[in-house]
């Protein structure tokens, strides 16, 4: 049978054109329109005003915090998972919550963190007054970290699991302490897993918007929230698209930063 590349690939090509290239083109096109539908560069000029730049920075800051804490929890978890007897079962148990709808989990946290929820009930048991946990920076980062943990664990777990265990013995044999073994062998060999984990956490964290509204009570404005507001509240599709264009650019930039490098040692 003769292989016909063009015919075989055409459905995928069509898919990519319709659902990837065309939307990006449209976003770019709308970003050049003002409220009246006339061409303008005003949206881009607006983006570089302090209001939007601050928002971009805040977005970055929160995405960084979320990624940092997710990594801080996910790496040791993944490490200990690989040491357990039934590691794949445990991994499964960690992954299962990620199958539940994000919105449902977010609503659950409203219940947990609410003034009459179990956390405040505990606080009262210890004799303190109930406090407002919802609608704070803390609750926003906490819930976001909770949601991203499984996505960070999977690539790190795979990287650790793939590593040849005799490399650890070799490092110990050559005089490395447990910490040095981690720093010079285990971590460098699982850095690709960490990078994948950062990609799947940092980029979505930049554009989180449901959680900002439900958990942070719109106190935290991220790029995602801004896009949503421009489209649905302000009806300014042009400005919304402009922010989206920048979000796409940031995504490409962070993917470039975390992409796979050719393996090479110090010369």
């Amino acid at each position, binding site marked *: 049978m003769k292989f016909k590349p063009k015919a075989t690939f055409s459905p995928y090509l069509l898919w990519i054109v319709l659902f990837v290239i065309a939307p990006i083109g449209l976003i770019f096109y709308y970003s050049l329109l003002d409220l009246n539908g006339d061409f303008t560069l005003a949206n881009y000029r607006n983006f570089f005003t302090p209001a939007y730049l601050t928002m971009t920075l805040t977005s970055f800051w929160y995405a960084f915090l979320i990624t940092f804490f997710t990594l801080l929890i996910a790496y040791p978890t993944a490490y200990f998972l690989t040491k357990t007897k039934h590691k794949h079962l445990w991994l499964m148990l960690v992954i299962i919550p990620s199958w539940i709808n994000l919105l449902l989990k977010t609503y659950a946290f409203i219940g947990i963190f609410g003034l009459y929820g179990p956390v405040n009930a505990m606080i009262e048991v210890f004799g303190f007054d109930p406090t407002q946990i919802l609608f704070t920076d803390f609750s926003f980062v906490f819930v976001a970290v909770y949601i991203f943990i499984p996505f960070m664990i999977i690539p790190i777990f795979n990287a650790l699991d793939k590593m040849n265990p005799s490399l650890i013995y*070799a490092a110990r*044999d*050559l*005089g490395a*302490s447990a910490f040095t073994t981690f720093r010079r062998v285990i971590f460098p060999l699982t850095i690709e897993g960490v990078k994948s984990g950062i990609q799947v956490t940092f980029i979505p964290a930049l554009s989180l918007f449901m959680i900002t509204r439900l958990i942070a009570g719109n106190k935290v404005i991220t790029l995602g929230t801004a896009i949503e507001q421009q489209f649905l509240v302000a009806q300014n599709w042009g400005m919304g698209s402009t922010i989206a264009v920048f979000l796409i650019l940031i995504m490409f930039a962070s993917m470039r930063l975390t992409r796979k490098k050719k393996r090479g040692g110090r010369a």
Partner: protein
Amino acid sequence: MANDTIIRFDNVTKSYNSNTTVLKGVSFELERGKFYTLLGPSGCGKTTILRIIAGFEAPTTGDVFINSKRVNNVPANERQVNTVFQDYALFPHLNVFENVAFGLRIKKVKEAEIKARVAEALKFVNLAGYENREITEMSGGQRQRVAIARAIVNDPEVILLDEPLSALDLKLRTEMQYELRELQQRLGKTFIFVTHDQEEALAMSDEIFVLNEGNIQQSGTPVDIYDEPINRFVADFIGESNIVDGVMLEDYKVQFAGKVFDCVDGGMKQNEKIEVVIRPEDLHLTTPAAGKITVRVDTQLFRGVHYELSTYDKDGNEWLVHSLKQAEVGAQVGLDFDPEAIHIMRLNETEEEFDARIEAYTNEV
């Protein structure tokens, strides 16, 4: 000379859980600067001994001494011992230079000295100029050498080799046997080599420890072990052998295959039941009239260097013969052998008893 002892095992046992015992009370002493081989089938405990010396595992009971210092609780990274792993365990994220330099960097050796020592180690294993290669660019044999260089560069007192040649093809393996032996002699370090390949053990070692089911069966020079196997297991494991039941009538007189033969062994009880070992290459084909036993050739295989004949005597004992001459399948032939070719094994004799007996009857002479 107690000073020459570098490693001592004192009744070491190792159990996992409560029911699997890998080592059942192993004691031995290793001298500085020799090439030792731990030989045995898989699961005999040879790798466990190596891992206990390296410090990856602690003995369940018993004591381990390195340089007369008890090291049971000394972690692997604080021992003057380096390992060459079966799968080499080279760090894939580092190049050849950094792999070899790994141990030196951890010891915070000065950069200039690291350069010099790595270069020297690589030269030792014939890999000078390969410093900047990636591990993935190296062949199996080259990786093997990098692993050896990474061990010797730290100037350890003992180098442990865990079946390091098993992943190489036959020709390369033979080459590396020569190289390893030569390397050990040039370095003058203690090498402890683990293998299940008896030919490898015989070719390279100063002393071999034959292990089975967590016990040392026999230790000695390759020639001793080959010529005077202590029991059926050792005789079978080290090379091919013919083992038949016999009776020791008196010193230097043994009866087997229905006849009485002169032999060179003694020190046993009169009429003691024993086992007789004769190596296939010690049996010579001759005419039935000239031979000591008459056998019928059952099958014949051409092995390149020799023909391997499977023959049977009239009692049904199988006699394996290695012969340079071809024989005719089905023919009656005679087998001739020297008294020195007859090796006597007492049933259930331990190594100590064996040594004591050899000493006793050789003193008489």
